[in-house]
């Protein structure tokens, strides 16, 4: 019969590999995403601790308390230990309470929105593409399945997206921003992001919306403030 | 209050409390109604059990003690997790012989009829009407057998 003896070495490898595989959020490209990435790191540490302790205890039991061949005597039939039970109700409660408080803090900052100086862009999802309208200037960018739209934004300035949908529920998602928000017909959602690194970031609809959901792509290109003004003026003059 | 009743009382109370908290936190109608309905459902069962299942093992009346103690004892009696008395005596309902049906064809016929009736919503009343008739016949046969 196969025996089951996880060695210490193997356990260590599993744990380190686990953390590496699960632990990597993409490089955060917005101010808000830095916060989220930090929070994820905290959660990962907590997760690793919980995993090592629990898996370690299970692994230890498996090795240490394996029945020996021919040993038929019953072990001590203990079934309770009140002090221990109190501890293992209390510690997890404290842990999740702490994780909740940290999450609430990050959420409050992320969902706070901007004070008046944000750039306003209206985002409308429709089957199966996107329409971006720059509120102040009226510049409009509409995508097609063959030509996904590009939203140009200035680096360092808060951008408030007003999100809605023309038909079914879609979701505006940019992986590098570590955020998404649903676009729902009949209501307007708001999402504020402040990109802090120039670059082009891919985006994709993240709420299943029908036949060509997989093709509902877009991108966000963050440029310097001057470049952005130039682009806006250009786009306003020549049309989408 | 038997353990059965306490089980549903705790459930109903939990849903009620969470429902109230939820309403004042979110003012969202759907969830609040659903929680209220869950609480109501729990309380209905408690009502049925209280009427239909009087205290089997019986908590001896204990009027002594301070008001706080008496209140705590009442709470324990209504919601408490473990019965403190009469564990040895508690008997489930079943005593004596139990009449069990043998094989029966009514269940599968009823299921078939219900399937026809509902599928007819897609394909037309020519499927629904026979389905309803079949269900009516088989339920009648079931109940009267």
């Amino acid at each position, binding site marked *: 019969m196969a025996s089951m003896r996880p060695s210490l070495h193997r356990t260590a490898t599993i744990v380190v590999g686990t953390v590496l595989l699960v632990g990597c959020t993409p490089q955060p490209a917005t101010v808000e995403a830095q916060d989220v990435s930090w929070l994820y790191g905290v959660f990962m540490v907590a997760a690793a601790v919980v995993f090592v302790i629990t898996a370690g205890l*299970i692994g230890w039991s498996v090795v240490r308390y394996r029945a020996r061949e021919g040993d038929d005597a019953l072990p001590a039939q203990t*079934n309770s230990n009140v002090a221990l039970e109190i501890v293992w109700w209390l510690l997890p409660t404290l842990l999740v309470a702490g994780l909740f408080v940290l999450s609430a803090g990050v959420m409050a900052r992320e969902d706070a929105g901007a004070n008046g100086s944000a750039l306003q862009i209206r985002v409308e999802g429709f089957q199966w593409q996107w329409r971006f309208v720059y509120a102040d200037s009226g510049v409009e960018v509409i995508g097609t399945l063959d030509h996904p739209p590009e939203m140009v934004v200035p680096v360092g300035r808060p951008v408030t997206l007003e999100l809605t949908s023309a038909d079914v529920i879609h979701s505006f998602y940019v992986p590098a921003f570590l955020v998404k928000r649903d676009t729902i*017909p009949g209501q307007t959602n708001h999402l504020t992001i402040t990109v802090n690194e120039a670059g082009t970031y891919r985006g994709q609809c*993240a709420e299943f919306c029908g036949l060509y959901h997989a*093709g509902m792509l877009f991108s966000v290109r963050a440029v310097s403030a001057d470049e952005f003004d130039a682009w806006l003026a250009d786009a306003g003059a020549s049309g989408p | 209050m038997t353990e059965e009743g306490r089980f549903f009382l705790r459930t109903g109370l939990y849903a009620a409390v969470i429902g109230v908290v939820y309403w004042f936190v979110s003012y969202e109608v759907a969830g609040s109604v659903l929680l209220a309905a869950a609480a109501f459902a729990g309380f209905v069962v408690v009502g049925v059990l209280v009427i239909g299942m009087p205290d089997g093992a019986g908590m001896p009346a204990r009027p002594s003690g301070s008001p706080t103690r008496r209140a705590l004892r009442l709470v324990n009696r209504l919601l408490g997790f473990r019965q403190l008395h009469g564990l040895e005596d508690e008997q489930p*309902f079943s005593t004596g012989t139990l*009449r069990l049906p043998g094989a029966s064809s009514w*269940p599968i016929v009823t299921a078939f009829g219900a399937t026809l009736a509902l599928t007819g919503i897609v394909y037309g009343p020519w499927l629904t009407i026979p389905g309803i008739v079949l269900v009516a016949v088989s339920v009648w046969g079931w109940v009267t057998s």
Partner: protein
Amino acid sequence: MSEQALPRPDAHLQASRGVGILKVLTTTDHKLIGVLYLATAFAFFLIAGLLSLVMRAELTAPGLQFLDEATYNQLFTMHGTGMVFFFGGGMIIGLSNYLLPLQIGAPDMAFPRLNALTFWLFLAGGLVAFSGFATAQGAAAFGWTGYAPLAEATRSPEAGANLWIIGLLLSGTATILGAVNFIATIYTLRAPGMTMFRMPILTWTILVTSLLILLSFPVLSAALAMLLIDRTAGAHFFDPAAGGSAILWQHLFWFFGHPEVYILILVPFGVVSEIIPVFSRKPLFGYHALVFATILIGALSFSVWAHHMFTTGVVSNLFFAITSMAIAVPTGVKFFTWIATMWRGKLRFDTPMLYVMGFLFMFLIGGITGPFLASPPIDYAVHDTYYVVAHFHYVLFGGTVFAVFAAFAFWLPKMTGRMLSERLGKVQFWLLLIGMNLTFFPMHQLGLLGMPRRIADYPPIDSWTLINVIVSIGSVGIALSVLLFAVNVVWSIALRHGREAGDDPWGGYSLEWWTTSPPPHHNFASLPRVRSVRPVFDARHPEIDPGADDR
């Protein structure tokens, strides 16, 4: 139709041999009905699993190789529907059906004919829902969650969608009636001396599961009925353009949907809680606390639903973050209880216990990613990506499926009178463990890298492609393992090569191990005295005082 009084202990009670088709169609015996449920659920496991293998084949490389979007969307919809409702639900109900009367010392369920009705409705529901594949426009294709407004008639006109709704209405009704039956049975048919706190832990999980079903499935049925009325009778419940609400569907669905996943895991917790003590040769540690934790999980499961809706912007993320984090506590406590049961025990690693070990490690991982998703900022990043797919497959596959295999290894000998092959069982276990981890662990990273779920195709991003290849290889491992299991069952049981089990091959604790394998008609010729949670153990070990168990 005949009526039989409960037989006297000296009555001749042999299990009947051979099963004619008429006997199957008219049975009201919970054991046969339970087996029918288990077999049907396993068939749906194979079908829905096959759908996922096709999906994995397509997703191995970017670009659409042999599927089109329309077909792919049907595949993931029916994979989810088949697995959640017809495999998961079917297995849970099948196990409960078979074991509950035996565990409480009853001759059958409280309502045997109702029991039969639930099976036939369940089967009909599955057939109707999947019959969409045979229609011209195909099966439902909007995900097992069926979000409106996508699921409305204008956006999803196919008849398969209506058939999906009707199938779920049929099987949902079956499930509700079944829950009524379980609760009535538990409350009225327990053996003398079996107080509520001497019921086996599996029975408690069946009770709480039934309560969850009773309170959540009607909500699903109502939502489905509303959707059906929208689709076929011109109503506008979920159509915002006509005054309805696009978000209402999500509230109704998830108010059902979250308790549903606990419906799928509580009985597996019960299975694990039954197997660990037997294979540790100790009593279950902290039985009362475990019962309390089960009830608490059940209650809390009704207050977390909108953690599926954090990105909608219309729910109180704070409220649901609190409740969702809170539910991790009683779940975690169960783990420590199980470890404490094994601690200082004498552990045997026959196949049932192997599967339970697999369950412990896999559900630990899945359970750990739960609080990640309960944190709204983290959820904003990973919601609707493969990260979520990884999480729920760890808890549902690593949890429910592993527990189901453990339950089969443990109780199939009781049901059939024959042991499964230990050697095949061990090989199959390791193959499943490796295959499962290869398939689902990399999905965490895939989600973090930004791959959304429910997409038929993805752009040629190297890291995505590499991970998808690994995942697809893992899925082959799972398929081979399931095949091995089928071989084991056929060889050991159908072909009778498994050794005879006898009444109690494992040294079990609860009443089902008192009777023959398989049990006779009406289950018991006699019953031992029930003075603790472990009546059979007490009867076999009179030197040990049962009072110590019964706090």
